């Protein structure tokens, strides 16, 4: 028996999509509310993972600060919800302001009274912040690990800032969205949660197509070029700074959308979204799923988080060991991630180990001559 590389033809792809859409539609009836909510949250996390895959898997920029943009999106959404449902509180502003003696809505929250503004703010503000940070860093040709360290430091800056500012954003406590109203319905209610699940699923697919479109064509080629040999891209006449800034701000925007969806489904946004471990976790989802595969990022985010919740329920102490082991394993043994392993030579190597013959690709002229094949 000989094996050749796995190929997907159109029928398989089509049936995959049909099954996927059927699952998304059926999930709310199949799963209990609690699990459905978890699945929705993890699906929204897969959008930020897509962003990480774009900047890390395709462009080679390991950002340890995606939590900033994730939380910014979350804060935008949460503040809008808080403001719109604050009519019965004093001064028509969210309840927590009264605790700190604030009587007027801080000026920068003013525009968030408008739903249209919020809709755009959720992804443009994180994208702009990411673009700014990215531009300042890339302009100086700071890259590699220095970029990672600087993004981590920026993460800490934002964390400390959000953590310390009670009067502006309720500090450590964060903003709750559970009991706020959207379109006259409670955000935490079951029907709303089901709607958010569907919204998330659609947006995940949309984000996936968007990311595929981004990495396709010349733009994507330049990104890969930057990853593999940046000076060469520069010497060819392209300015890597622009491309890196654009892709970093795209990833920031995706993180913002993801954060907003995660916030409405988990019921709270707090500076905890900006802790160092959470941002590094995002990287491991992509690493395990397979960097540079896009689909791997989605699968990695959903499956690892699901595994996390299952393991943590059964054996709370062991998850840290498993997670730590995963980090070590994925860089030493599986550098391409699970999906990369499947798409690459992984399964064939494994089968070969069990005695299956492997079809060796040779020149056609050699293939005629049986003696030279070995």
């Amino acid at each position, binding site marked *: 028996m000989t094996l050749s590389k796995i190929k997907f033809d159109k029928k398989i792809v089509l049936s995959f999509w049909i099954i996927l859409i059927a699952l998304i539609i059926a999930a709310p009836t199949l799963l209990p509310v609690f699990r459905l909510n978890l699945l929705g949250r993890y699906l929204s996390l897969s959008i930020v993972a897509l962003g990480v895959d774009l900047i890390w898997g395709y462009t080679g920029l390991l950002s340890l600060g995606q939590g900033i943009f994730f939380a910014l999106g979350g804060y935008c959404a949460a503040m809008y919800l808080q403001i719109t449902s604050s009519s019965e509180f004093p001064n028509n502003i969210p309840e927590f302001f009264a605790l700190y003696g604030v009587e007027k809505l801080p000026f920068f929250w003013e525009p968030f009274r408008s739903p249209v503004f919020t809709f755009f703010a959720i992804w443009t503000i994180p994208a702009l912040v990411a673009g700014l940070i990215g531009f300042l860093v890339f302009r100086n040709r700071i890259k590699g690990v220095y970029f*990672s*360290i600087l993004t981590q430091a920026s993460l800490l800056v934002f964390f400390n800032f959000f*953590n310390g500012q009670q009067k502006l954003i309720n500090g450590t406590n964060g903003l709750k969205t559970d009991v706020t109203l959207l379109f006259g319905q409670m955000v935490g209610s079951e029907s709303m949660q089901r709607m958010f699940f569907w919204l998330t699923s659609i947006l995940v697919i949309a984000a996936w197509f968007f990311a595929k479109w981004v990495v396709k064509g010349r733009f994507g080629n330049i990104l890969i070029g930057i990853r593999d040999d940046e000076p060469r891209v520069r010497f060819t006449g392209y300015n890597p700074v622009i491309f890196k800034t654009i892709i970093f701000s795209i990833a920031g925007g995706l993180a913002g959308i993801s954060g907003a969806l995660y916030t409405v489904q988990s019921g709270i946004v707090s500076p905890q979204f900006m802790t160092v471990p959470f941002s590094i976790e995002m990287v491991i989802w992509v690493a395990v799923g397979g960097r540079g595969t896009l689909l791997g990022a989605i699968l990695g985010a959903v499956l690892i988080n699901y595994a996390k919740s299952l393991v943590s329920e059964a054996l709370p102490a062991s998850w*840290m*060991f498993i997670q730590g082991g995963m980090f070590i394993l994925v860089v030493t043994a599986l550098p391409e991630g699970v999906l990369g392993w499947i798409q690459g030579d992984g399964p064939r190597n494994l089968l070969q180990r069990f005695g299956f013959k492997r079809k060796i690709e040779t020149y056609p002229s050699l293939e005629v001559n049986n003696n030279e094949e070995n």
Partner: protein
Amino acid sequence: MELLLDSLFNGVAIGSVLLVAALGLAIVFGLMGVINLAHGELMMLGAYTTYVTQLIFKLPILKPFYNSYIIVSIFLAFIVSGVVGIILEKTIIRKLYGSPLETLLATWGVSLILQQFVRSVPLAYGTGLVISLIIGLFLPTTFPSKIKESINFKYFKFSSWIFAALTGVLTGSVISSTVSKLSRASARNVDVTAPSWMRGQVEIIGTAFPKTRLMIIVITLISVIAITLFLNQSSWGMRIRAVTQNRQMSDCLGISTEKVDIITFGIGSGLAGVAGVAVSLLGSVGPNVGGNYIVGCFMVVVLGGVGNLLGTVLASFGIGIMTDLIGAGRLLSIWPDMPLPLSNTINFFATTSMARVMIFALIVIFLQFKPTGLFPQKGRMVEN
């Protein structure tokens, strides 16, 4: 004047903690290009070593020497963290040279495991494990060269590991039966109490100064001097510098780069342990104690310029003094009648966390002008 002096002292005190913590990182990162995110956890191991040493010195046999436990624990912490670092190098990091981003992820995984290890394994057995690791690593190197060169050396090695394991289990159970505080696993923070001669304050030029702070400055000073002497005067130091400058050439000239890597990483990790002793004097010790320092350490290394100890020293004292100036709002007391908007801004940043925000922002601005830090490495290559 007195205010300024006070500020300077505080700044130096903060800076010396940063420096001793960043020193090991600067060596590992600067000389080997390895991003060790488990550095904070190696510090934590050092801090826990101090705690364990303290409790063991409370036993009746060692009680007379109790006051000197802190000196002993500095050496023990160096050895413990160093050995853990060496094992880390031998098992994981060795495979990842040349790809710093991968080392970053792998060492983060190690740091998670170490944190959880401290939480869920009783410290007594943890001590036993560390002791067996030390014996297993170093016992084979003490054998006479006749045995080392023989074909059967691997059996000797194997039996010495068995011996090490047995010793480890034995010490673990002995400690857990004699020191009750170490026999149960707990995630709670523990406290290291300084010996009596280190409590209280000293007066230096009219300013009261806690003795523990002074001790940390002394530890830092000794570490910096020792490491500078080692790198510049000893033959291994010369080899380390040679490998840093040109790895392939050094390899060709007969320097064992493998050994150099192990020694460099071991020393860097050991220094993290020493930093752990310093940190344990400042506050309570918990599984997360290292995480509070790691980003600050990296900022010191980046700001100082990679591979340059002088840069590290200057950067950490600079950050320390700035932290104190901003965090305590000292500029306001030096210049009381400054314009209102300015003083409002200063008050806004006059907390520990907001001072951090300000410092990091300043560092990012600084890197706009000098992207490679205070003392950049000179080179003509496009890429380093």
